[in-house]
């Protein structure tokens, strides 16, 4: 057992964990952060994507001990004071989800994508989400959601980048 101390969704936590425990298992089983889910065993699907110090990682591919001393944000920590993150809002607005299982990872990856490239074109969005699988949407409305969020984030930031015109669906 190894002692780890980290911050998850703003909460300071401290636990003894087995060295082999994955970050996703720690989040789900020890902290009850079940918003983050597991979809595969091979780090292909991205359903478990969270942010580690603000960068997206697949939490099935990170050991809990590697998160020691770091800051983790999950899908459950995005909304502040009941206000959805613009990317969450965009997924709802553009019907970017159906069963919702890939959605937490898809949203976390989309935020990371927009952090690095606030005005992606369609191809950049598609390539930026390449590590996240969805079986329901055909990706069409997920791409629309990221475009929508890009426009709204830019508008909110008063950025000079013109928001793209997007109609859902």
């Amino acid at each position, binding site marked *: 057992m190894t002692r780890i101390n980290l911050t998850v969704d703003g909460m300071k936590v401290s636990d003894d964990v087995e060295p082999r425990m994955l970050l996703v298992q720690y989040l789900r089983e020890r902290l009850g952060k079940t918003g983050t*889910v597991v*979809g595969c065993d091979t780090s292909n*699907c991205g359903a478990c994507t969270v942010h580690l110090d603000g960068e997206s990682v697949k939490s099935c591919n990170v050991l809990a001990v590697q998160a020691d001393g770091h800051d983790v944000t999950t899908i459950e920590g995005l909304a502040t004071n009941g206000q959805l993150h613009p990317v969450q809002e965009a997924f709802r607005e553009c019907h970017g989800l159906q*069963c919702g*299982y890939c959605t937490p990872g898809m949203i976390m990856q989309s935020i990371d994508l927009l952090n690095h490239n606030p005005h992606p074109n369609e191809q950049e969005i598609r390539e930026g*989400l390449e590590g996240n699988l969805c*079986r329901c949407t055909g990706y069409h409305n997920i791409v629309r959601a990221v475009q929508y969020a890009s426009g709204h984030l830019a508008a909110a930031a008063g950025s000079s980048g013109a928001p793209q015109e997007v109609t*859902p669906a």
Partner: protein
Amino acid sequence: MTAVEAQPETKEIGRDRRRKEDARLITGRTRWTDNIQLNGMLHMAMVRSPFAHARITSIDTDAAKAAPNVLAVLTGQDVADDQGVMATAWPLSAEQKSPTHLPMAVDHVAFAGEVVALVIARSAAEARDAADLVEVDYEELPAALDLKEAAEDKVLAHPDLGTNVSAVWVLDSGEAGTGGNVDEVIAQAREDGIVIEREYRQQRLIPAFMEPRSTVVDPTGEQITMWTSSQIPHITRFLLAATTGTSESKIRVIAPDVGGGFGGKLQTTPEEWLVFVAAKRLGKPVKYTETRSESLVAAHHGRDQWQRLTLAATKDGRLTGLKVDLLADMGAYIGLVGGGVPVLGAWMYNAIYKFDAYQFKTTNVITNKAWVDAYRGAGRPEATYAIERLVDELAAELGMDPLELREKNWIKHEEFPFTTVAGMTYDSGNYEAATARAKELFGYDELRAEQRERRERNDTVQLGIGVSTFTEMCGLAPSRVLGQLNYGAGGWEHATIRMLPTGKVEVLTGTSAHGQGHETAWSQIVADRLGVPFEDVEVLHGDTQIVPRGMDTYGSRSLVVGGEALVLAADKVVEKAKPIAAHLLEASVDDLEFKDGRFGVRGTDQGIGITEVALASFAAHNLPDGVEPGIDAEATYDPVSFSFPHGTHLCAMEVDTETGETRMRKYTCVDDIGVIINPLIVSGQVHGGLLQGISQALWEEAVYDDSGTLVSGTFTDYLLPTAADTISFDIDHTTSPSTTNTLGTKGVGEAGTIASTPAVVNAVVDAIRHLGVNDVQMPCTPERVWKAINTAGSGGETVDAAVPHLSTEEGQA
């Protein structure tokens, strides 16, 4: 009571409401089965057979039992008396051969992945660790793997059965009196017409829902509660009771949030049965969640057929006959509806066309692979693929435009209702309208011009245009038809509407959504019907104790059948409320009219809202004599017919003739799915359906090696498309309301998948037909396309390509 609340002005049906479900799904406030933690809960891990076919000679569980925190290790022998059995709901005949499918093998395993022992421990990791300590000795047996060889009984998958042929099922228009004799029509065409003969492969696919299956069973309390990641909680409860001897009234099954299904969770599973028996034995809650590899290896697969097809036509392109001869791989066992899946296509091979004669025959064959059952479309994608590929082949033979040939043969819009050569009566449709709109959106003529231009200058990247004018039968199903087909249940659906005294409305539906957005669409329907605000409607589903009756969700049935049950229940609520409203208004029932949630007295401004009636009937202080308190109502609807969505799908593919690489340039579809309740949800269903069909055409295939091991057993090997592999789709709709239900709906869940596969392959073949190619076997990988261009044939079997990749002789291929 005259102060009637303001009612929503906008009619809900047809409105692109954002989904109610999303608030929890986008914030992680979800209740997947694997999220459930109960006090004292134990965890199960499976030991699975690595062999496709073997006898179990001994199992040594001592080391596993001695491992830390292990409570039990059970083998098939240990649970032989109380594990129950996996049922087949759709035997095709009394003579059907169906091997006994035990949840856990006792002495014989029939596919690699079958459960042979289970371990229960305090943590999932300890259970998994201990499972590795179970020693199983096998006597390996020869395995029946290749479908065609299995059909010849060269090796028996289950030696006790004496044959691999499970059933043969035939639909013949001559015998049924719905058309002529197909052999005569084909013989005639051989003399003075055209005969197209082809053999197509429907490769094996894996539904690959994103949420791995998970089951928790809590045996404490009076009812045993099962939470399970399933499309069919009601059917599961019935079959648990029927096969394990536990009283049905002691079982509660809950499908909480379920992460996709696509037919893959239309199954009762060995894993569910084993968690049930283990929890009962140990008296503690038990959870099992599969790994992705377990899901790919041991959850059921889809498709896997060889289709031998003969199309007859006159020289001027009038379709006369179609003969379909299928070999359908059932895998190691006959699944819940697996035997019937090919049969679901029987009425669809003739599609939207008028034929003189038709025959469908399926030979269902048992092999030593994971069993095959419903996967999105189930039987109908196979049918649509075959006919739409054949019609394109005939068009090429005749030198006709494929759309012109189709129009020459399809049912004209003024001919509906139309009874087909297969004996199905299509209620409505307008193929001309959908096609005209699709051509316009797609830019059909411009793309044809570009195609000609590229041909003429011998461009290394050629353009192909693929057509698919599909139809399907949805709304499973009229119970009397299911009875005639020997199906083990009815096809009705149930709804209850509870009018709460606070003005809120609870809707209980027997459908069980897992991504389809029923909570939203059902709210829209009920809000319109009862004139209550959308926000005030709460839809409850997926719990057999809350919704005692239901037939669950599959086969594009939920809206067409379940939606009609909602309408009937809502109308009953209004009828029950009416005498109470009349009494409170001191008016005659005959003078009342119900509009926008309000009973008004004709010719006056007097009225009362239905939610006020609900409160008055709850208080029950002042009811008419003989009227019971409460205006809740329930309804069960049995459909009178199927519904028949259709559409025209057009696909443009670019093919690099030097490398075989394909790239989708444009995909346009115009679907007629009847009246649309929520266009946003419909768009999502179409997009997702399209990609699953496109993915069959281009990427996906479950591949077994020659020892019966699934080599595509992870997401690294089973190729699901990513966002980067795909394009945005152009979709639109025409509307011919269904005449067989009140709302005029037809169903949309499977449409995209059924239609898109042949559109894509037709486009690929169209791009390279001038190079002498008339088929590329699915999935149309660059390798296959390249081989089709450079050698004769359709590109060869994947397994032949896969084996050298793994062999040491070939080096680092």
